[in-house]
């Protein structure tokens, strides 16, 4: 039954979010663990970014005529100098569109 499966999937998803928030006590973490945890964004987000840019949906790497690579490099450069989230997203998208609509 689809509803049962969905509710289990929902509970499992909720638990991935809730378990450690609830189990870990602030004082139980060592300083070193806190330092390693401060790298969580840098460790998780590239695992979403890289495949979305370089790979097709079946996992083969696409290097030729890949507008996403151009857009991503542009975003990294803009981000490095501006250090601003919004500027990076907007300029990254504009450069990506410029490449798709004007060059390819």
């Amino acid at each position, binding site marked *: 039954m689809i509803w049962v499966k969905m509710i289990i999937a929902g509970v499992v998803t*909720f638990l991935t979010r809730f378990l450690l928030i609830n189990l870990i006590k602030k004082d139980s973490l060592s300083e070193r663990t806190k330092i390693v945890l401060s790298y969580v964004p*840098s460790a998780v987000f*590239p695992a979403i970014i890289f495949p979305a840019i370089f790979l097709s949906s079946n996992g083969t790497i696409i290097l030729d005529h890949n507008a996403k690579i151009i857009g991503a490099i542009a975003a990294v450069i803009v981000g490095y100098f501006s250090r601003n989230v919004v500027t990076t997203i907007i300029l990254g998208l504009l450069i990506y569109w410029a490449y798709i609509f004007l060059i390819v």
Partner: protein
Amino acid sequence: MTKNKILLQGIYDVLPLLLPVIPFGIIFGVIGVELGFGPYVTFASSFIIFAGSSQIVFIQLLSAGASSLVTITSVGIVNSRHLLYGAVFAQYLDKLKWGWKILLSYLLTDQAFAVSNKYFKKNHKQKYFYYHLLGSGITLWVSWQLSTLLGIVLGSIVPDELGLSFTIPLTFIGLLVGEFRKWDHVLVMMVSGCIAMFAFNMPFKAYIIVAALSGLFVAYLINRKNGKK
């Protein structure tokens, strides 16, 4: 700062990140209906599961005839990165009451984590700092529900030619710009990104958590070395 101001700050901070959320929600609504799940099941998954990429995994696996065990395990593994977000936020939310922990856990998505983590780092000594996560989380929740509904009702109103799927990696790049000048963070990013590509075809879509843990292991090694100086 008052509760309301912090709540509004959370809403404000997450607004630019809605750029990929809305087209993605519309696409999800369209796929759900196209795969034959009907409007109710498709829409319900957006508030019962409320995690975009794993919702896609859920409906794709079921429509391909995968067993319940495989489907639910895959959803769990795709979402296991939230465990890491939870470990980070436990440092701040430890003292909150159960009701708050349950509500804020339900609202804990990638984007909410990213913006509220930045806010918490600087402002966790404020009394109502956690209203920031409430603001960012609810904003994402409402946007996700409405965009799923739009996709279900109106079909694919976002032209493919715009290539809006690119906005997903793009916003995650944006979320990391604060760390681009730190060599240790850049190293962790490169390791995680490369491992994600090599591990992409692992069963159960495990590549995200495998790459993330590899990145954290590198972070651990870097700091162990620094500690000895």
